[in-house]
């Protein structure tokens, strides 16, 4: 069996913010690899550096030091417009607040992103329709976000993230605004999207999600303090998953 494809290779990431004379280091010498076929959770307390790490891994923020290779491209040395090209071809995003256009239907919210990536309108709508059907929204294609429940909105966001067939899907607290059961359903759905050519990285506070994960990375005070298989992982509260 061949080695899983490495989607992200980060080495020695340090991020320091300067405000006046005060310097705050939010990431300290972080190194990690993310592979296809894995659902990885990035966990840690508020202010531990999770979101900053996500921004740097996706090429939206430059580290003060260190390198990131995203799908084989050294993204940290690229100008913003080239970094955007790499994101466009390889990444999907899911957010806590869904970030859907309120005036567009579920179908349009997905199709317009595909059109923006260069897909012809007719094909984009077809692919969007299929993506929405895969997340169980067959009967919600023409509903606007305001007419959908929180779970359904997040499903639209998942369809939007998956429709372009990205290699890596990044989620920032995707279940934080959902009730317990809906949150678990959403992560189960994300779990189903993981395959030998795709990986998922979720930033979360929710330890319950670990039951769907392959791997958990724990970060605290800007440093990785734990990195291992989700099965049997002992979190900061000492709870062991079995």
């Amino acid at each position, binding site marked *: 069996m061949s080695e899983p494809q490495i989607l992200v290779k980060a080495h020695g990431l340090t991020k320091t913010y300067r405000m006046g004379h005060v310097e705050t280091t939010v990431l300290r010498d972080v190194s990690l690899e993310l592979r296809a076929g894995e659902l990885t959770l990035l966990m840690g307390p508020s202010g531990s550096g999770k*979101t900053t790490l*996500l*921004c740097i891994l*996706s090429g*939206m*923020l430059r580290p003060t030091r260190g390198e990131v290779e995203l799908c084989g491209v050294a993204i940290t040395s690229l100008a913003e*417009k080239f970094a*955007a*090209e*790499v*994101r*466009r*071809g390889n*990444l*999907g*995003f899911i*957010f806590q*607040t869904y*970030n*859907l*256009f*309120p*005036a*567009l239907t579920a179908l*349009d919210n997905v199709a*317009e*992103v595909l059109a*923006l*990536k260069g897909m012809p309108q007719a094909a984009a709508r077809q692919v969007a329709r299929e993506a929405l059907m895969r997340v169980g929204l067959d009967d919600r294609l023409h509903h606007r976000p305001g007419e959908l429940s929180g779970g359904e909105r997040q499903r639209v966001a998942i369809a939007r993230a998956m429709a*372009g067939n990205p290699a890596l899907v990044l989620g*920032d607290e995707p279940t934080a605004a959902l009730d317990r059961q809906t949150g678990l359903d959403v992560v189960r759905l994300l779990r189903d999207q993981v395959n030998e050519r795709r990986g998922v990285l979720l930033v979360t506070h929710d330890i319950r999600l670990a039951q769907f994960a392959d791997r958990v990375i724990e970060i605290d005070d800007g440093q990785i303090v734990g990195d291992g298989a989700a099965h049997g992982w002992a979190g900061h509260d000492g709870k062991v998953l079995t």
Partner: protein
Amino acid sequence: MRRIAIRSLLFDRGKLIASLLGVALASTLGFVQVGLYRGFEQSSSAVIDHVGGDIWAMPSGLEVIDYAQIVSVGPRNLLLSHPCVADVRAVVYGFAILQLASGMRSTALVVAVEPRPGWQIPWNVVDGAPPDLDQPLRVSVDRTDLKKLELPSSPIGKTFEINSRQVTVAALTEGIRSFTLSPYLFTSMTNARRLLGVGENEAMYYVVDLVDQRCAPDLVTWMKRQPDLQLLAASAWSRKTVDYWVGGSGAGAALLFTAILGLFVGGVIVGQTLYSMTKEHLLELATLKALGARPWELARFVLWLVVFLAATGVISGFSAALLLKGLLLRVGLTVVVSPETVGLSVLGTLAMCLVASITSLVTVYKVEAATVLR
């Protein structure tokens, strides 16, 4: 991005209505002010533009056609003696005192031009016939002046008094108004001379038709032997008259100020709406940027809003301007709607929307993808 922008605008009815009102208001003002300006221009130089010719000869120092002075017969013969001159037509033009049946006294402009085949003065005749004006003391009146002249809607055969002589209406014109609002009374040369007390061979202007336009400078040099006379190209004379009335009277500046004010108010409303919509959708736009959209692709969100608002604003503004055109004509104001005035107004509205969108464009252009993760 077009679908996202337009759907977002249509989705927010309150902002849509506010911004459409703003653009429509600015656009209507633009159409009406530009149309009024052209109307003023046309009315101040209407006689010059319709009499035409290549060069107008007149007393030196004259600034505007309405302040006409008598020129003797001498210049006419001098002009005709130049080989470059094909024809010379005399124009009799002057103010006369109008005495109405009610006892009201006012002024009117008596105009006569020597006839030339193919040229009909007056123009836009809707009732009666210009040849009838050759009959003694016959004049034409314009429909827009009927109330002022205390005449009925069918005025042919009716009489009134000018310079203590009773004249009879023999023709009715449509839309020939002077800038001074004094009614134009067109008549024959004989009648005009009689009404204005001008000698048989005298006139106020001589309109010269040249054999060849290129010999105009030679003719001007030739006429320098008559120092009390100035020669102006018809277009220059028309421009000078327009500048005197529309520019010098402040009417042009007032119209321009109102148009700019309209564009400013419209611009503020549109700018406010665009900025508010942009701020509202900044998170979604940042999401698109995170997904790989380029800054100029996001800018298209704002630009499509601009195109939609400008297009709908222009259409509604144009419709309102057409409605106002009819209403303003009733109070004696001519709004000219021509490809030129429409083009200017459309450009003005588009420019206003584009300027109003600058802040929004900068905001969208600068949005950071990372904001979606903070």
